[in-house]
């Protein structure tokens, strides 16, 4: 392979990796940019196969301009982070096409130390960590490959070894170095819409797009009175315009009313969502900084959740003054002239019952009697009177349909009602005792108000699919096929295979530990760990560790220099010096011939061997002729023999 061709191949590897990265980040970059990246990869491949010549400077500039345009148009200024990362990725990819010299290729490899970790902006779970680690090892290996011509396979081994050696240092730095909060933080990447949304209009959705992406994990105290079903309240929708249930305008307003704590705290580790809302059971407050409670008793943050967050949750009871007039108005408001059938039905039930409980019983009876059917792929209803259609014709839907219909009928009967979206259930990890809640656990239900008593939860979906309450959706056998159809290709789809399921649970566990102990290893956890480890000295330790680390680095440096000098001595001299060490006197300044005499007088039984060794040594050091291979081996053997025997 000519050097040009080899360099082409070396840079091709990088281009292919860029292609892989952009495919994996498809959700963040979108179709247009990913396609553009793949076109660049294709172009590079074509150049490598020598089907076309390498691009001229003009063409590369044109391509760069095109990429910038694509990024501006397809990603745009609203997603700043994505825009900059994609610009970086595109620029690097073009550079691999343009690179003609070793130096240019190396500059791309160096840039990769910035490009690859950008992956963490979009995903921080354990699999991404492994992926980025692999990328970095490959990058180091490629650098060895390009710069020193070490074959990629052995270069990879070497790079992996070095990375492995660096791990203890990294661990020490994580544990010991003081945690300083950053002066400036990159705004987190916005997540694409999966799971919850601010507006609910179930009738327009024909198929719930469900993913097995993790939303949060919850560590509940063992002996708590908390029992399933777990309704993780997240968003309250109280603003109904006849079509959509919009999220309340008070979602982001901190709670003013007094409250009292009821029950034990628990911990939730939320994944980066790019949203402000958080998750909790019932009504709750949090002692974690930056986490607030609103008047509905759900938690929210002031800024977007751009990285994993661990927060404490304490259940509370809000002692409100009851519904004030405008709240009552808002929670019973219905636009005129829509869904006349449902309205009529509700008014009829209302007239035949004297309390809310009876009304709800009537409603439940209706759903059960008419054999409503739970489905993840209901037919779309685009009619203006969508609830009428649903109640009388299609009678098939998922939680959103049931919740929206029930809330509508409650409001029609003059009962304050609102929609709540969140998550239901969660997968319990037996070993570690935590719940994992995934996007496919997303759920919607209803809350209604009884004067002097407060808000109550009502889940009409449970009437139709009572199994849904007992656990996570993934455990529901009746919907298994439908559910897995929706998931597409993911490990979850094959969870009935024991091995796959085991593997999935292992990765899940690893990820839990990773999130808990590395991503969320904050100042608090650090000082707790140090206190546990070192007792009362723990406060000195972070400061001390900095000095220790510096000293260690210097010591290592000096050791390395020392070692290098010893290594610089040729083998015969090292052996000779080792033998000279055997003498009682200092032979450092004596000529080999004199040293020989001294050694011979000290070890008369070795005089033959010493003499022979000296001959070889003198020949190897001073003669013009080199030692032959057998002579060199003989000398080494003699040296070792002398040292061994003399030490006896």
């Amino acid at each position, binding site marked *: 392979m000519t050097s040009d061709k080899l360099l082409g191949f070396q840079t091709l590897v990088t281009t292919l990796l860029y292609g892989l990265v952009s495919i994996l980040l498809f959700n963040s970059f979108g179709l247009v940019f990913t396609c553009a990246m793949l076109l660049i990869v294709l172009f590079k491949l074509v150049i490598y196969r020598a089907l076309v010549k390498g691009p001229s400077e003009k063409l590369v500039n044109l391509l760069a301009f095109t990429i910038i345009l694509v990024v501006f148009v397809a990603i745009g200024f609203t997603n700043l982070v994505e825009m900059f990362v994609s610009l970086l990725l595109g620029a690097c990819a073009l550079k691999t096409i343009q690179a003609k010299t070793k130096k240019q290729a190396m500059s791309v490899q160096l840039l990769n130390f910035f490009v690859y970790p950008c992956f963490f902006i979009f995903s921080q779970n354990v699999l991404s960590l492994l992926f980025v680690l692999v990328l970095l090892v490959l990058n180091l290996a490629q650098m060895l490959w390009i710069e020193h011509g070490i074959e990629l396979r052995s270069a990879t081994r070497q790079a992996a070894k070095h990375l492995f050696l660096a791990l203890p240092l990294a661990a020490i730095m994580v544990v010991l170095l003081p945690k300083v909060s950053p002066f400036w933080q990159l705004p987190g990447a916005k997540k694409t819409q999966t799971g919850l949304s601010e507006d609910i209009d179930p009738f327009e959705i024909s198929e719930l797009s469900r993913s097995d992406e993790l939303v949060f994990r919850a560590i509940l105290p063992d002996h708590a009175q908390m029992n399933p079903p777990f309704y993780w309240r997240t968003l309250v929708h109280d603003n109904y315009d006849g079509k959509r249930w919009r999220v309340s305008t008070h979602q982001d307003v901190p709670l003013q009313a007094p409250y009292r704590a009821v029950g034990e705290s628990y911990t939730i580790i939320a994944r980066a969502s790019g949203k402000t809302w958080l998750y909790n059971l019932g009504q709750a407050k949090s002692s974690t900084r930056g986490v607030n409670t609103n008047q509905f008793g759900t938690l929210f943050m002031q800024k977007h959740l751009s990285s994993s967050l661990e927060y404490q949750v304490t259940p509370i009871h809000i002692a409100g003054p009851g519904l004030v007039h405008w709240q009552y108005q808002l929670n019973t408001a219905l636009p005129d002239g829509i869904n006349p059938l449902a309205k009529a039905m509700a008014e009829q039930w209302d007239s035949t019952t004297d309390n809310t409980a009876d009304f709800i019983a009537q409603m439940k009876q209706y759903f059960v009697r008419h054999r409503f059917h739970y489905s993840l792929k209901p037919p779309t209803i685009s009619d203006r009177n969508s609830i009428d259609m649903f109640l009388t014709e299609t009678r098939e839907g998922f939680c959103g349909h049931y919740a929206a219909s029930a809330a509508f009928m409650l409001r029609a009967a003059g009962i304050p009602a609102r929609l709540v979206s969140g998550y239901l259930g969660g997968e319990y990890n037996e070993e570690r005792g935590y719940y994992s809640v995934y996007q496919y656990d997303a759920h919607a239900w209803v809350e209604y108000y009884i004067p002097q008593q407060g808000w109550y939860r009502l889940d009409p979906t449970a009437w139709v699919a009572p199994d849904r309450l007992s656990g996570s959706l993934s455990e529901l056998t009746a919907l298994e096929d439908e559910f897995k159809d929706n998931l597409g290709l993911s490990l979850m789809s094959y969870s009935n295979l024991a091995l796959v399921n085991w593997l999935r649970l292992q990765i899940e566990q690893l990820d839990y530990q990773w999130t808990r102990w590395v991503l969320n290893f904050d100042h608090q956890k650090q000082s707790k760990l140090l206190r546990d480890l070192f007792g009362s000295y723990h406060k000195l330790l972070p400061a001390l560790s900095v000095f220790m680390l510096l000293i260690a680095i210097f010591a290592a440096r000096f050791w390395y220099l020392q070692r290098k000098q010893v290594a610089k001595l040729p083998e015969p*001299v090292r052996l000779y010096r080792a033998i000279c060490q055997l003498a009682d006197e200092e032979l*450092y300044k004596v*000529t*080999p011939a004199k040293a020989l005499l001294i050694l011979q007088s000290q070890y008369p039984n070795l005089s033959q061997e010493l003499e022979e060794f000296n001959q070889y040594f003198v020949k190897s*050091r001073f003669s013009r002729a080199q030692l032959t291979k057998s002579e060199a081996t003989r000398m080494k053997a003699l040296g070792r023999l002398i040292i061994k025997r003399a030490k006896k």
Partner: protein
Amino acid sequence: MNKTTQDIISQLSELILGKEEQIRLAVVCLLCKGHLLIEDLPGMGKTTLSHGLANVLGLSYQRVQFTSDLLPADITGSSVFNTSQQSFNFHPGPIFSQVLLADEINRASPKTQSALLEAMEERQVTVDGKTHPLPEPFFVIATQNPLHQSGTHPLPESQLDRFFLRISLGYPDEHAEKSLILGNNLQRQSLNELSCVLDLTALATLQKAVLAVNLSDSIVQYIINLVNFTRYSGQFSDPLSPRASIALGLATRAYALTQGRDYALPDDVQAVFAAVAGHRLNIATNELEDVVKGVFDNVAVVL
């Protein structure tokens, strides 16, 4: 080649008993085309050694006894008016020989010393504006008495430097002296019976062979370290010059050759060091041994 040098040395050893090392150094000096200075008390065998050396090598030999009234013309020769030809004819002096023994050089006046040393360096003599080249090879063996003797003019340092080696024969050991008394050696009367082992071409080959001896990097470094020690340790008032370094390298090679090796050892350097450096460092012969040992103890052998 080894045999030839060994032959010379053994022949001379029969003449001067128990002084093999000094004889070897004298041969080294000759192989390096240098001039030899022998410093000793009278009656130690200086003249015998130089005469024997000339005989063994088959070279023409002249001896000049230096006295305080010796004039430069007495060694270089002078122009004499030839009445029959009505012109000045040059009568070459004793310097026009292959081996010149300048006996007791420090007895002569500085003017005469200078004339000889100049001729040694230039290998030619200029008399009355006419240049006469000296024969090839040209080898001066000068002897001098230890400086404390009365009536001597010590050679200046710059002129001492012209001598490649300085050796000192010293007293013979008991065994050798016994043999001398009994007359077991050949001694003067049989000096002329020494067989000539070398002709001129063989000598030229030997001199060329010296340059072929391998001086490894470590040996060169050792020489440099030794020379630098005399320069920077502050123990010497007259440190070694680069000319001395060159001489040290050359002498080391020649010494290795006389030992029958085609590569030099640190031992060779140590063997010639006293002879090469002693007079250049301006150290009296009787102190030389201790000083050289001090140098070797301070400079590590480079391997």
